[in-house]
């Protein structure tokens, strides 16, 4: 049984050689990039790969994000997990389970379940062993119609179940069953994401992400037409270890921060509370201008203190 694959924010996997599909150590896999194991990124131009916030100063990020995004689209359509980090055109999972047709428009926003699920699958959902194996099998090529078993649970809009039903069942976990891996059932929790200044809303399924990094990167991609900053609290160090860059972005004032409305109707900065607590209480997300969000932090910390 293969180990669940840990994805850190920048896509390093624990099993680079397995991911490459051959026995040799594939140095490419230790490169910093966003992507699933086995995915190939084109040779990176730092300007273009503007998807990782820490690596770039704000200015080039703004333009880089867009380009990185469209680069991902051009090159990566057909790749499972939504062209994360400008992945190549390998169809890892085969066509059948893939979100996108081999060429052409990749469906970006609104489909994080595909991306997130692929990542999340590796993080130990009960998708079956064979699913993990095929994910590690590396690039499948030209198998347009071959459907890898792993794909079954993560194809967008499949199985055809209304999101209302999925959401309802997700908030009502099976009580009597022994749950080995955490969440069984339809496990899905859609929340709206709005961004100040953007002409339209999106929806994301929080259950497809396992931590703030995944959520943040998915949102970046979704809204990368617009400038977007990192989420998180002001200068509060946390296990994500990205506090410095957050602070930097907030101080710049013109960047955006990610906030959420919780069960009580209060608006909080994303990143203050443990991930599970966040997904339990988050009702909707809003990407707001950093300058608007300054006032939120004290309240967020207050709440945390009160909770503890």
């Amino acid at each position: 049984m293969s180990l669940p694959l840990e994805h850190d924010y920048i896509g390093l996997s624990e099993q680079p050689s397995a991911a490459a599909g051959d026995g040799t150590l594939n140095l490419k896999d230790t490169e910093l990039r966003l992507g699933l194991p086995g995915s190939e990124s084109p040779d990176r131009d730092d300007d273009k790969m503007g998807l990782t916030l820490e690596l770039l100063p704000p200015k080039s990020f703004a333009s880089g994000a867009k380009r990185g995004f469209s680069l991902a689209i051009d090159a990566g359509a057909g790749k499972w997990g939504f062209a994360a980090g400008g992945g190549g055109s390998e169809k890892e999972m085969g066509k059948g389970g893939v979100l996108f047709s081999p060429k052409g428009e990749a469906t970006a926003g609104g489909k994080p379940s595909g991306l997130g699920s692929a990542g999340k699958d590796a993080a130990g959902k009960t998708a079956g062993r064979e699913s993990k194996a095929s994910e590690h099998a590396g690039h499948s090529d030209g198998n347009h119609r071959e459907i890898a078993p792993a794909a079954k649970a993560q194809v967008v809009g499949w199985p055809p179940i209304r999101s209302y039903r999925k959401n309802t069942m997700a908030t009502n976990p099976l009580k009597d069953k022994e749950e080995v891996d955490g969440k069984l059932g339809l496990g899905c929790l859609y929340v709206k994401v709005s961004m100040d200044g953007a002409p339209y809303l999106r929806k994301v399924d929080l259950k497809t992400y396992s931590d703030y990094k995944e959520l943040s990167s998915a949102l970046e991609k979704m809204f990368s037409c617009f400038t977007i900053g990192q989420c998180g609290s002001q200068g509060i160090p946390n296990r994500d270890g990205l506090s410095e860059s957050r602070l930097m972005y907030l101080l710049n004032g013109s960047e955006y921060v990610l906030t959420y409305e919780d069960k009580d109707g209060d608006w909080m900065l994303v990143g203050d509370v443990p991930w599970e607590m966040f997904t339990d209480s988050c009702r909707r997300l809003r990407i707001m201008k950093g300058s608007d969000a300054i006032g939120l932090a004290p309240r967020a910390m207050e709440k945390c203190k009160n909770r503890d």
Partner: protein
Amino acid sequence: MTYFPEEVVEHIFDFLGSHRDRNTVSTVCKAWYQVERLSRQHVFVGNCYAIRPERVMARFPRMKSLSVKGKPHFADFNLVPYDWGGYALPWIEAAARCCTGLEELRLKRMVVSDDGLELLARFFPNFKSLVLVSCDGFSTDGLASIATYCRGLRELDLQENEVDDHGCQWLNCFPDSCTSLVSLNFACLKGEVNAGALERLIARSPNLRSLKLNRAISVESLNKILSRAPHLVDLGTGSFAVDDRAEAYHRLMNCFTKCKTLRCMSGFGEASPCCLKALYPVCINLIVLNLSYAPAIPSDDLIKLICHCSNLQKLWVLDCIGDKGLAVVASTCKELQELRVFPSDIYGAGTTSVTEEGLVAVSSGCPKLNSVLYFCYQMTNSALITVAKNCPHFIRFRLCILDPGKPDPLTNQPLDEGFGAIVRSCKNLRRLSLSGLLTDQVFLFIGLYAKCLEMLSIAFAGNSDKGMIYVLDGCKNLRKLEIRDCPFGDGALLKNVEKYEAMRSLWMSSCEATLGGCKALAAKMPRLNVEIINESGNLVESKENLSDVNKMEKIYVYRSVAGPRNDAPEFVWTL
């Protein structure tokens, strides 16, 4: 007949039940068109973008009941971006200007705003019935408007909507003078309502026949409600979380004993096995039972319950009922017409407890079965052939094999033969959803035999353009075709373009049709709206980069006399 006075013609038209018949008679001659349009009370608009609201209001000034559908069906599965469209406000505004006699409004898959609901509540003095199905965009504030201003409200039916909870106590807004409620369904609301206000509302609603509570309503509250409304016909139970040792449980059983008219039940969100026994007194009378939101009830307890339900006509369950449970359904529920089996665990290890055997059992035991929705992990050709033989009366057959493209596990063959048998045998089949491994052959069968088919849903199927062409050429009554992840391209899209004007809509996503193909279609058929939905970032920029050979991710084609719509978001491009 044109020599008859108008009143007589109108009276004859009154006997025409369906709007299709009325549409037909209105095309006979100008006189009939006039009589028909001035006497039509129920108007159905299957696609809100097929016609402008003003035109509908102008044609049917005496409209009392309006039903409008918005987003395409695949929007249910998140294939349509959130802000695609389907706004209700233009319809409500148009009606507020010309048809203030409106009494009923039914909307499906539309975006309804609080402003729209307020308009509805204030500008239509006779407004009686609001039914919203799979809608979103509104909050409890909008519901508060309806409750406050609609005098004589009879029906407020919210089915599976996404409603923002703004915390206001909308239910308290029903004035004391409101005593006309017949149907109240707020099962989809997540927030709390004031239990006391609810009980008082029910106590002053002697005509209440249908009540569907949300999960926030406790069993204690349910008890009080049932004791005040023993004439309920349709009940959604709310949480139903009760221990069978509690006093509340005994009171519940007592209440149910007094509910002699109860015929339909749903809810059971937190029901546990022990509290199901409280239902036994009513089971024999039940014709509709929806247990599909009750995951905590294992198969054996479901079986015990169903053993008492010999008059069931409609049953919705989760697949934890198992093949064993379905065999019990087959032997007990001889009146069953509709069965839906939903999956309880789609991220699981790849097995569920229902297989093709359960479906075969029900098909064999329930002679009146005509509508099936079945989620399972495997199906065989021989099972489908048996089902087809047992049930020639199917109207709806929707099979979802959870692994896309999975073949018959016994023979490793595609399921062409099995579905072929279904369409050959079920001559009245109106709706069909396919799944599993399928080649062009199945579409050949469908085109040949499915002459009554109106709606077809295809996913991960077919080999070539021929598949789609068979369907478009053969299915004379096809109205809605929705396709995802199939190898159908421009050849299929453009082979029979006139067909699309005879249909309501075509949806193709993740297929092989290109921008060039779509442009050609739009050029040939000006009365079709050919929408390209492209979510990847900035459409304006992408348009410059797109060439005619780019494959289009999502295509939505529909006939329309309204021209391209003026509310399309940036990522929708009407060619």
